[in-house]
């Protein structure tokens, strides 16, 4: 070789850029671990679901019209969050915040109805300490309700962040995670209204 100048170094990019891609996957794995928490609570409820201890059975205490309204609230909040995600993709910050507020209102209605249901049950003497069935019920449905409440807090924080910085890349990433969290809670609720309420009333 007569060429004395050093060869131009060649860099190979062996790894992918893990900026937000890793966040999405990492958050997804957290959500899957959260799904496992709900799996154990579903299993607990399933095992205890006929242990009435002489107390009330599902048919006597569950009010399906109320549950149907509650389910509708959560379902509507899912589609309004979808609209917020789309508005964010289209870089419309105002629309994103508006849809998030609508989502939070539906979520708050859900939590409100659930608290009303819980307080009615406890007033009737069907509190979590009444029987194994009711312990399992309050543990499962209550944990889901707490998750929705956390989601509401997160939406409030997200609205503040959007107000301060607008739709910057970081906020879009946060919104994506919040969206996955919110939609997963809806998936868990499908299990709750099917296996706890509908099948409970059928039993």
């Amino acid at each position, binding site marked *: 070789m007569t060429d004395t100048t050093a060869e131009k170094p060649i860099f190979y990019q062996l790894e992918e850029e893990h900026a937000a891609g890793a966040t999405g996957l990492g958050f997804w794995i957290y959500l899957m671990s959260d799904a496992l928490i709900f799996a154990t609570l579903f299993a607990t409820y399933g095992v205890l679901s006929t242990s009435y201890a002489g107390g009330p059975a599902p048919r006597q205490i569950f009010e399906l019209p109320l549950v149907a309204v509650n389910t509708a609230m959560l379902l509507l909040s899912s589609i309004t969050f979808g609209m917020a995600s789309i508005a964010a993709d289209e870089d419309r910050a105002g629309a994103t915040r508006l849809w998030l507020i609508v989502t939070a209102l539906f979520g708050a209605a859900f939590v409100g109805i659930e608290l009303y249901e819980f307080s009615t049950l406890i007033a009737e003497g069907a509190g979590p300490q009444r029987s194994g069935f009711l312990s399992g019920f309050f543990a499962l449905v209550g944990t889901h309700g707490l998750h929705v409440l956390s989601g509401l807090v997160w939406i409030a924080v997200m609205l503040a962040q959007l107000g301060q910085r607008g739709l910057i890349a970081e906020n879009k990433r946060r919104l994506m995670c919040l969206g996955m969290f919110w939609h997963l809670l809806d*998936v868990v609720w499908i*299990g709750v209204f099917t296996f706890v309420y509908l099948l409970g009333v059928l039993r």
Partner: protein
Amino acid sequence: MSKPHLHAHADTHPHGTRRGYLLGFAASALLTAVPFWLVMAGVLADVQATAIAVIALAFVQIVVHTVCFLHVNARAEGGWTLLTTIFTVVIVAIVIAGSLWIMYHLNTNMMPMGDGMTDMP
């Protein structure tokens, strides 16, 4: 695409389209309304048939939500999202089915207690 999206990051999580969300919502609303109607109106005379229908509709609805709202597919995150989802579904099935199975047999094989005491010799 009408305008270029300037993503400063390697965002491989798929985004939904308005059409996808609305289709998912329509399917989801139907898949919620039908089981409530089946149970509340007592459409099917057979309780077991109603239960099977309600459970089947729930599973379909979970898949609809996972695909349309959570955007789980084979391409997201190079397939890792789908892989972790399948793994979780397997663990969830083992935890729930295993618990019910074991505890059912435990209950069946238990010594009768409480009210059952009177049946004992």
